[in-house]
């Protein structure tokens, strides 16, 4: 077992974990932050996307021990309680989700997209979320949602 400590959504969280525990399992099962989802096992779908040290990362492809000492932001920590991040607002306004399973990862990927490129073109948005699968929406309303947030930001 390994002792780890990381700042998750602004709080220092400690754990005693099997080194092979994935970051996504640490977040979901030890910290009970279940907004981060698991949709595949080959680093494709992006449902598990969180921010690690400020950038989008697939938490199913990181062992929790690797994130020891890191700063992690999950969907639950994106906006203070009661508030919505402009991207969350955009997804709501523009019907950017249906079943909602891909949504947290999609939003976290979009956070980094807009950080790198605050005024992306539609093509750049589509490329920027190419690490995230959505099976419900056909992506068009997701693109609109990110445009909404970009216009607001």
């Amino acid at each position, binding site marked *: 077992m*390994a002792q780890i400590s990381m700042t998750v959504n602004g709080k220092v969280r400690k754990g005693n974990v*099997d*080194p*092979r525990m*994935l970051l996504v399992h640490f977040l979901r099962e030890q910290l009970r932050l279940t907004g981060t989802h698991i949709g595949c*096992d*080959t*680093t*494709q779908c*992006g449902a598990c*996307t969180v921010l*690690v040290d400020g*950038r*989008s*990362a*697939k938490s*199913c*492809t*990181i*062992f929790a*021990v*690797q994130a*020891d*000492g890191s700063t992690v932001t999950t969907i639950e920590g994106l906006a203070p309680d009661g508030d919505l991040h402009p991207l969350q607002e955009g997804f709501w306004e523009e019907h950017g989700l249906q079943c909602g399973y891909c949504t947290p990862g999609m939003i976290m*990927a979009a956070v*980094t*997209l807009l950080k*790198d490129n605050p005024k992306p073109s539609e093509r750049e948005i589509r*490329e*920027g*979320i*190419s*690490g*995230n699968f959505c099976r419900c929406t056909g992506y068009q309303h997701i693109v609109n949602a990110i445009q909404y947030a970009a216009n607001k930001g």
Partner: protein
Amino acid sequence: MISTPFEYSRATSLDDALAKLGATKGEGKFIAGGHSLVPLMKLRLSEPKILIDIARIPGLSGIREKDGKIEIGAGTVHHDVASSALLQRACPALSDCASEIGDPQVRNRGTLGGSLAHADPAADYPAMMLALDAEIQVKGPAASRVVKASDFFQGLFTVDLAADEIITGIQFTPVKSAGYAKLHQRASHFAIVGIGAALNVKNGVIQSARAGLTGASSHATRLTEVEKALEGKPATSASVEAAARGAGAALEDINSDIHGSAEYRRAMIPVFTERALKQALARIG
């Protein structure tokens, strides 16, 4: 999916990393971004007993210009290569190549050294390493050495790297007139065929050329016939079209899978060679 159990430790320096690896007696592996290794471990296709995390070794990542050459630390993530102002100015094809790897999240974590050490036959970087005539910096317990990319990629998942060595970085002379063109596998976004190409042009004449191929065979391979065909030719579309035509013709053992038969891959080598070369041409001057 869950990997088999392993012990984990973090290296504080290169010497520490090598010492820790040596102590595992062959049962250890380095992990940096982990974006080649972790997926394999989750599928239990790789079962190291000990992981030594090298991601936080100071100085292992970064892109620097030094004496006309560019050095990139092994721990540099693909995103940093893709977005480097230095590279975009001096060697934009390498940034392009990095931006073709995986997807944004993968590029935020995956490292240059990890990609080179893993040497997936469909990885993007190796083709560009060959095109840039890059040198791979390798450090062992006793000594450091430099391996030319053309000597480094030796076979399927096999590179010139001893079990007790680590890749510390690469160095290369930047070439602005270079390009990278890739036929995407639509599911994984790996290369079905990927070509890196670089031209050294003076007064409108190609002095020398280098081209590297990935995706089509067991390991990244130089396309020497293309290189030879371009030497001394005017830097024109007609020259590169003619040179590309025979690209890969001499290759044996072309890969074949559901995404592309050997025949198709073979036919795509000239197509993407021409596209990479035309990108290079467009950057002359």
